[in-house]
């Protein structure tokens, strides 16, 4: 049973189908692993052991009765703590929602449960998904399993660390500007942000509504395809989800890239990028060529405006999305007895952390009379230009290849006092959110201090299957996924 924490879901399912293992054994093995390493990783905000074991027993009974087994039967999954699970605490990593339990589940939760997944717990994150290191959690910092002195990335740092450390098989995260792909890269696992509208956002606590998207964090590309299959599709509760057929992703996982055209946008190989990161990605491009792909340099000329554009749009939406946390209806309320206006002020002052306050203020400012046109209005126009860059590139290329993050995992505390430096961690991931296109990060080597490097593959809207195909072919012809952190 000790091997369970090392296996991807697609291997565990095989064991289960051959009846070599029970669901209860799978779940107990994961909780044993959690007992061993969680103190060092601190990936979880809450754990769900009792309920998980009960569900495991329920599935075992069904398997025993030879009932039809769903695709991810018995697979342990961790959920980022900004995705609502009915009657379970959903904190968003914030004091203001410390004791909040929603009376409903997110659509993705219903979907993974119907697919047989067993929810192990809720994972740590930067408060309201605002951050790139999980240091902005109101509770504690999650450690990178490869080196406990470094950050796991963010904001889905808990989800990434829980998968990388073998505490759980699968995890769900959310990606607003790179919050799935960047921690996946820094923790040496696979993480995907689907096309905007591919996965329902219903029940995902909003940070920036026009950018947020839920996606998988997994041990390999096959698992990513499996989990994406389960969570994708139109949801009537989310008007921004799109009604398009969901392809059978597994069918696209072939170890061959004949006819695939790969672009290398030159703007992603310049400023601030670590030498080892750049080399790993260029090396990966060679591997793709060997697999039959045609690789060429290309350009996304508006890339340099992406970070500024992102921080105007994301903060504007956030300032409005987070207005509801006022102490009136639920969540934290100041203990001081006071009048209404002061109750608002004190509740939000005490309930929110610095980064959240910073972004609320910035967002409020850019929407204000007299500034709207110059900031928010202009950002919307630049967003269109960035989108057009990609449309143009995708006329010629099937996918684009870039580094996921300019650096490997950095030290805890290194950038926390320098927001602008921190914001640059997302420099390569942000554009995909602005353009609404899908992207994946997969391991492609090791850089400074032997820390993992991530390769980002971006694709056309609603063509996740092409990204998965390229990612799979690369993964299968390299050995990176086989290296595990020693904790």
């Amino acid at each position, binding site marked *: 049973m000790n091997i369970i924490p090392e296996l991807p879901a697609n291997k565990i399912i095989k064991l289960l189908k051959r009846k070599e293992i029970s669901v209860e054994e799978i779940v107990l093995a994961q909780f044993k692993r959690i007992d061993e390493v969680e103190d060092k990783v601190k990936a979880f905000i809450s754990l769900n052991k009792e309920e998980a074991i009960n569900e495991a027993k329920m599935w075992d009974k069904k398997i025993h009765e030879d009932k039809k087994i769903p695709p991810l039967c018995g697979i342990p999954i961790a959920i980022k703590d*900004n*995705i*609502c699970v009915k009657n379970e605490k*959903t904190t*968003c990593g914030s004091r203001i*929602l410390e004791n*909040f339990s*929603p*009376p*409903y589940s*997110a659509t993705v939760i219903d979907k993974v449960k119907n697919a047989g997944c067993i929810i192990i717990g809720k994972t740590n994150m930067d408060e309201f998904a605002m951050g790139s290191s999980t240091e902005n959690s109101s509770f504690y910092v999650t450690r990178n399993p490869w080196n406990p002195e470094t950050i796991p990335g963010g904001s889905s740092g808990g989800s990434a660390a829980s998968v990388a450390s073998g505490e759980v098989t699968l995890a769900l995260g959310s990606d607003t500007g790179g919050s799935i792909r960047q921690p996946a890269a820094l923790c040496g696992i696979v993480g995907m942000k689907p096309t905007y509208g591919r996965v329902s*956002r*219903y*029940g*995902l*606590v*909003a940070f*920036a*509504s*026009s950018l947020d998207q839920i996606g998988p964090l997994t041990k390999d590309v096959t698992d990513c395809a499996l989990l994406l299959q389960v969570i994708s599709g139109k949801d*009537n*509760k*989310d*008007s*921004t989800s799109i009604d398009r057929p969901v392809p059978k992703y597994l069918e696209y996982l072939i170890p061959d890239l004949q006819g695939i055209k790969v672009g290398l946008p030159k703007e992603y190989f310049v400023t601030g990028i670590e030498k080892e990161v750049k080399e790993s990605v260029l090396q990966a491009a060679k591997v793709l060529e060997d697999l039959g792909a045609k690789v060429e340099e290309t350009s996304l000329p508006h890339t340099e405006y992406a970070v500024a554009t992102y921080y105007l749009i994301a903060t*504007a*939406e956030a*300032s*409005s999305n987070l*207005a*509801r*946390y*006022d102490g*009136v*209806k*639920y969540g934290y309320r100041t203990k001081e007895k006071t009048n*209404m206006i002061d109750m*608002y002020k004190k509740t939000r002052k005490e309930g929110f952390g610095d980064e959240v306050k910073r972004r609320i203020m910035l967002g*409020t400012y850019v*929407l*204000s*009379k007299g500034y*709207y046109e110059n900031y*928010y209005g202009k950002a919307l126009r630049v967003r269109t230009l960035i989108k057009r860059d990609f449309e143009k590139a995708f006329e010629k290329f099937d996918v684009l290849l870039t580094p996921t993050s300019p650096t490997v995992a950095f030290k805890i505390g290194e950038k926390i006092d320098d927001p602008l430096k921190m914001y640059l961690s997302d420099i390569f991931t942000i554009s995909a959110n602005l353009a609404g296109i899908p992207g994946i990060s997969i391991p492609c080597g090791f850089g400074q201090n032997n820390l993992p490097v991530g390769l980002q593959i971006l694709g056309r809207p609603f063509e996740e299957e092409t990204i998965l195909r390229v990612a799979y072919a690369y993964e299968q012809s390299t050995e990176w996924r086989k290296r595990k952190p020693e904790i």
Partner: protein
Amino acid sequence: MKEYKIYIGLEVHVELSTQSKLFCGCKTKFGAAPNTQTCPVCLGLPGVLPVINRKAVEYTIITALALNSRINKNCRFARKNYYYPDLPKNYQISQYEEPLASGGWVEIKANGKTKKIGIERIHLEEDAGKLIHGEIKEDKDFSFVDYNRAGIPLMEIVSRPEINSPEEAYEYLVNLRQIVRYLGVSDCNMEEGSLRCDANISLGEENRMGTKTELKNMNSFKEIREGLRAEIKRQYELLSRGEKVIQETRVWDPKKKKTFSMRGKEEAHDYRYFPEPDLPPLFIDKSWVERLKAIIPELPQERFNRFIHQYGLPEYDAGVLTESKDIADYFEECVKFFPKPKMVSNWVMGDFMRLVKKEDMTKIKISPASTADLLSEVEKGTLSTTMAKEVMEEMFKTGKGASQIIEERGLKQISDEESLDKVADEVVKENPKAVKDWQKGKSQAIKFLVGQLMRKTKGKANPQLANKLIEKKLKNLSG
């Protein structure tokens, strides 16, 4: 004394009578226990998303079409950001730069002439909840929130400042409400808050508006007229003294009959509107609009004209009958069964409408066919008008048919000359004084004698016949 031109613009909020709220499936019934018609969406819980109610959009399109407005093919929702405990998300989903419809007009009569009041825009938005301040001792320090109303669809109709007197404003509102009710998209009940109205007022010159104030808290059309008059008077006095009007929001105090400045809360707000990212732009295609155009009922003005021409009714009758769609429908149904429009009109405008006032039309138990039956009995002379009133009241209460009630209560009029002749004889014999009076030339005496006859027959005698017989007897006596 200087003359000023009055400029008034009205913002009317109409609560649409959809079954469910604008962005969730919650019920919209008025008067439910607090917070029983709520769900995570209208309570603004973290992570929920709005889904637009198609019916609410259609109701707004229908209204826009009826008001001659232009439907915008692409419209968007926007967030209006402000903090208040009755607003669950601390932003209201409304429309800003791209409303559902623009332009259009409402026709009114002003100084005997027809005048068009222009409409600026029509848009759709969600209502807020309601704050209830603690009244009993333990609750004095608290306010309570009822979110039943939060998320109910509101249609906002904004007029251009083309209304030039409080009377025109009143007329505009009456006509607008009539149209909206005809369309069946709202009951426009001001007491239940399903119609609310704010006003902008300024005094200016012929082609130039003055500084405007916004006026709130008027709870009936009459209060709106009064409030406007008071505010105009206030502004007039200020200007006459050479002082300036300050642009501000004012509230009408119906007790003091004055408007007061509303400092604080509503002032100098920056709502930071921006496009609602949770709802994609709403695309309203031509065929959808065409389909809705086809189901718009005949509007009050057209119907008024038709009633005059088709039924030969006087303007007054046509006006009263077409005031409400339900009454007009009822009238036309009756005429189908009893094709004497003027008689039906008299009846419907009189006793029928008096009874309807007590109940609403949906609860009326008398079918038009039944009313037609009743009228034909009156026409045949089998039922007196007084009796008919009684029968109708019974019909209202029980829903029984006219002939059944007449039968059961033995109300049939006595038009049989032979039997009445006997009674007439008795009456003349028993009242010699009245007979003498008549002979002396007091023509009034005949009325008394007829009254006696009616009493003896418990009111069932045919009055014309009774009159005729008494007169005959008197003439015979004087012979």
